[in-house]
């Protein structure tokens, strides 16, 4: 079943994130993809995430889809102007990519090419609008396309939203975002508050997929606590600190969070630190497999 159909079937969605390689060696990426086959409803492929230059997600999605795995291609506004974004979306459609996740993208100064020109010709709301036009058979300038795209659009969100961010969330829905993947959730209570907030404004068919990062060590917890939009409660940090087997502890915490948020949202999105070796086990621990 396609990701879109699964999303609307009412099944609790499982997506997982893969990063294209820094280089041309795709073996690690392929291994991760193989680990996720038959487990994830779709695999997200990141777009120079954290502004670190990597292989194009368009190419990586092509390779992963060749294995019979549906992908969600990330597309940021950081690196391409409106021409390049549209041409990549046409190309994505041509090679069978049916889902994209639209986001502004971390600023170049956060990555490994600090001096790069930040493009941001359009923002995520506008890019969603562009995709909607392409799906209708027209480009941004209103020119008719020889063949429209058929791409399902998602967007991203933090789980702590101030009023301005909440209005932007609403604009993303207005411009065609059908699902949202959230920043990593560690605090179930605060996530529940977020869901209450967005349930007040989202249409029923707009799905929320909660981000999950299984911690691997105290260091990974401390690092993630500095990432925008992530807040790890003290008791989790303490558990990681006290644990003799932090990797297993991190898996347990992830499984517990998944179980607790399952009644609140429409799915989860696993973003591991490193590879997907533990993903299947975590999903089993969370009674999802």
């Amino acid at each position: 079943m396609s990701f879109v159909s699964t999303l609307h079937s009412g099944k609790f969605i499982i997506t997982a994130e893969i990063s294209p390689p820094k280089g041309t060696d795709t073996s690690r990426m392929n291994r991760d993809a193989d680990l996720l086959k038959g487990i994830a409803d779709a695999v997200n492929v990141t777009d120079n995430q954290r502004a670190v230059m990597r292989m194009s997600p368009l190419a990586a999605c092509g390779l992963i889809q060749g294995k019979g795995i549906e992908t969600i291609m990330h597309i940021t506004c950081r690196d391409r102007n409106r021409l390049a974004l549209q041409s990549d979306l046409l190309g994505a459609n041509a090679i069978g990519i049916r889902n994209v996740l639209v986001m502004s993208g971390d600023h170049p100064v956060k990555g490994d090419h600090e001096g790069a020109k930040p493009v941001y010709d359009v923002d995520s709301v506008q890019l969603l609008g562009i995709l909607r036009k392409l799906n209708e058979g027209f480009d941004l300038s209103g020119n008719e396309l020889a063949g429209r795209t058929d791409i399902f659009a998602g967007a991203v969100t933090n789980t702590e939203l101030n009023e301005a961010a909440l209005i932007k969330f609403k604009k993303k829905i207005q411009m065609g975002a059908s699902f949202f993947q959230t920043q990593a959730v560690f605090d179930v209570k605060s996530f529940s508050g977020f869901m209450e907030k967005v349930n007040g404004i989202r249409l029923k068919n707009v799905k929320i997929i909660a981000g999950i990062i299984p911690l691997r060590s105290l260091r990974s917890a401390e690092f993630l606590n500095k990432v925008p939009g992530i807040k790890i409660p003290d008791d989790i940090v303490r558990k990681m600190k006290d644990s003799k087997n932090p990797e297993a502890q991190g898996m347990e915490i992830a499984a517990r969070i998944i179980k607790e948020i399952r009644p609140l949202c429409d799915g989860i999105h696993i973003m591991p630190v490193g590879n997907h070796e533990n993903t299947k086990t975590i999903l089993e621990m969370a009674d999802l497999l």
Partner: protein
Amino acid sequence: MIISRLKEFDEILQLLTQKNIFMIGCGKCAKKQHTGGEPEVIDLKEKLKAAGKNITGWTVLSSACSINSWEDVLVQNPAINKSDALLIMSCGGGVSVISRYAGISVYPALDTESLGGVCCNEIVTELCGMCGDCTIWQYGGICPETQCSKSLLNGPCGGAVEGKCEVDERVCAWDKIFERLKELGKLENLEIIHEPKDHTKKSRGKKV
């Protein structure tokens, strides 16, 4: 006001391959910011002299970017005729105008950063991006094109941490926009969906 900053001294020294240098400061923006007024010209002149450069003379024009006649500048400053190069302590506008008429090598001593302003002795940077299509009123007088590090027109990104921009810890422009619109009772402006900017309105992008 054009916001500028003095280049590193070593960089200036490397630029100046010629021997006889005449220096020109600017009595407008650079003076106000203390990057190119009389004290700064004199200070740099002394350093260049100490580094072995022959400074043939100096002046501070009332405005480096707005010169009535280059002939007048030459009449007032005959030492320019005995110089191999000019070192300009003004924004890029001033350097460009002088380069156009001087007929000898012209070097910038400052780097031009942004279009800002000064109010009650406070210098504020990066206020206007000169996009040629001003919609600043919709944002409570705070231009997201310039003040948001990603030029986002439809709301904040998710990168701010405790209200600080992910780029340089400045207060998130969108928090400022929100607060200002709230003060003005115009929060409904946040609901406007802004289309992508038309860059043909910038002077360089104008359609012929």
